């Protein structure tokens, strides 16, 4: 059963969890990405246990159960009008709006939200327990999470839940579970926060949707006995591209309502990669829209091409040296 967490013996003191984005990713789909990371790490790759969170089965449950994209039409319309207010090209606006329609339904169905989060937290606990079984003390475990696109949203929600709910047994201060690195690539967390807050009247169990809480997006943390926040991750990195709308950019313009940021947080490192489209036919905006549509709509795992500004492997490749440093340090 795919919902059972992956377990394995750690070769050393560290592990990586990959969390994919939109699409019907299944076991084996990200083998090329892992090979890319292994090549990047060189001999150090042998020190890592590699984990993957495949949560599409749960998305499929809810899609089949409700048979209703209709429920999200209002949402899609909301995103579309918001973008048109910012003078976005129509094709690009539609592509982004459809992406939002795909990713926002955990916002509207509390059970969908809870299901993926439960699966995620089970996997995190299993990773920590695998580390303990390999005789690596929890405080010495070097666990990195690399999330892409919608995987960033599930990562953020899971880590906030872990940090704020001691019953989850993964809080950084009470239970001492701190992740070495959490690397968000093309994160839509702020985009989802903005849209969800606009429609919060129809968001069920808002208190369980962490990204909408507070006056600003907060880093997952737990206060210690003196009230000082202890971060869930020792290092939090956000990498996005200036052509990637999911990461909060529209044709090289940063959209404050869609770009995930934690200003003044010393453990947060933001990076915005300059991007170029390799294929420019009838205008960069049209090409971008087409790339998104093809990447997001296909039935299989998103086909990652060098031209796609949202591509996971391109993000990894551009920051290979830094990522290696973060992972092996």
């Amino acid at each position, binding site marked *: 059963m795919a*919902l*059972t*967490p992956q377990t394995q013996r750690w070769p050393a003191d560290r592990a990586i969890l990959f969390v994919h984005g939109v699409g019907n990713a299944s076991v084996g789909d990200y083998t090329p990405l892992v090979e890319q990371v292994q090549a990047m790490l060189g001999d150090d790759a042998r020190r890592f246990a590699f984990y993957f969170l495949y949560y599409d089965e*749960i998305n499929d*449950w*809810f899609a*089949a*159960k*409700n*048979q*209703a994209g*209709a*429920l999200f039409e209002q949402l899609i319309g909301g995103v579309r009008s918001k973008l048109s207010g910012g003078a976005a090209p129509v094709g690009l606006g539609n592509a982004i709006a459809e992406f939002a329609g795909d990713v926002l339904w955990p916002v*509207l*169905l*509390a*059970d969908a939200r*809870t*299901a993926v*989060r*439960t*699966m995620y*937290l*089970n996997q995190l*606990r*299993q990773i*920590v*327990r695998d580390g*303990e*079984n390999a005789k690596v*003390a*929890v*405080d010495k475990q070097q666990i990195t999470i690399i999330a892409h696109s919608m995987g960033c949203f599930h990562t953020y929600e899971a880590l906030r839940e872990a940090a704020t709910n*001691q*019953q*989850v*047994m*993964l809080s950084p*201060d*009470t*239970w*001492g579970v701190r992740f070495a690195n959490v690397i968000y690539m093309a994160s839509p967390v702020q985009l989802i926060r903005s849209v969800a807050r606009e429609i919060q009247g129809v968001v*069920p*169990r808002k208190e*369980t949707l962490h990204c909408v809480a507070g006056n600003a997006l907060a880093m997952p943390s737990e206060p*210690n*006995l*003196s009230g000082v926040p*202890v971060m869930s991750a020792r290092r939090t990195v956000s990498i996005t591209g200036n052509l990637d709308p999911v990461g909060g950019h529209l044709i090289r313009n940063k959209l404050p309502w869609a770009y995930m940021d934690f200003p003044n947080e010393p453990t947060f490192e933001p990076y915005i990669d300059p991007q170029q489209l390799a294929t420019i036919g009838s205008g960069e905006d049209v090409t971008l829209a087409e790339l998104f549509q093809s990447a997001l709509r296909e039935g299989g795992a998103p086909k990652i091409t060098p031209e796609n500004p949202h591509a996971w492997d391109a993000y990894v490749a551009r920051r290979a040296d830094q990522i290696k440093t973060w992972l092996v340090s």
Partner: protein
Amino acid sequence: MRRLIVAALLLCGSGARAQEFRLNDILDSLKRGATLVKLDSADPVAAIKLDSVSKLLRAAGAGTVKVSALAGVVTGTRVSFGAVNRWDTRGTDLLAQAWFHDAILLLPKIANGALLRPLRTTQPDSITDGILAPTNALRSLGMAMASEQGAERLRRMDIKYGTGSPQLNVLEATVNFAFQWLPGLRAAKDGSPSRWEFLGAYRTLEVNVVRSGRAIPNAELISAGQVGLRWYRWSTTPDGRWAKLLQPRYGSAGLYVVGPARAPFSSLIRVRRRHGAFIGFGHMHLAFVAEYPRHFVVGTDRHLIPHLF
């Protein structure tokens, strides 16, 4: 002597080790750690909290409570009868109290938040790991329990939403969306799904059993409407076709309506509707139309036309 026992238990693997630690072991080890790192001066807030919570817990007679029971407390899991002193109900009363829950959670917070770093920097790993062993056992057991809770929550989600669960039409999806706000019908606080689901459907292929006088009953297809609630059964169903048939994952009950025309695809909106009730057993249901002419109808909740019926 206690240290010898602890050392012996450490050799017996984490499962056995975790089972044998008691609250006194946690309190003693944290006290020892606090002395080693001079917590009084390094972190006076933590030192005071450790002292006061230790006195409080010992005064309540909680020192002999097993770590497994404590793990149940911190994860909100019902504590098993065997984990507490079955002849003394004060133990179970204590575990259920909010202050006890908060007091227990203070201990790992002191261990991991205040003691761990100075211990790692001033003591060898063997000493640090030994001091933290009882608290770590609590975490390990708690993690196992939390994962079991998570697995159970996902199992229930699978029953309600997974492959083979009934699909919802637009009306049902909309009403069930609204159910997310209704007490008793919405999900539990811990995130477990509600057992209940609104059911409202137009059925086009119901089998009406008709008997005229002493003639052999014959069957005809009619249309009908259902409004009611579906109820999911969380207990595990044994494998096997017959077992699944006899113990379906869900049942349902509610109001049943048939139109005046005894034909498939007929309208239910007209006058002269007749009413009754139905009960469902898995995807099959049996209805009784109470208004004259009374009759029984059997049907299935499979959708003939997705999204609509």
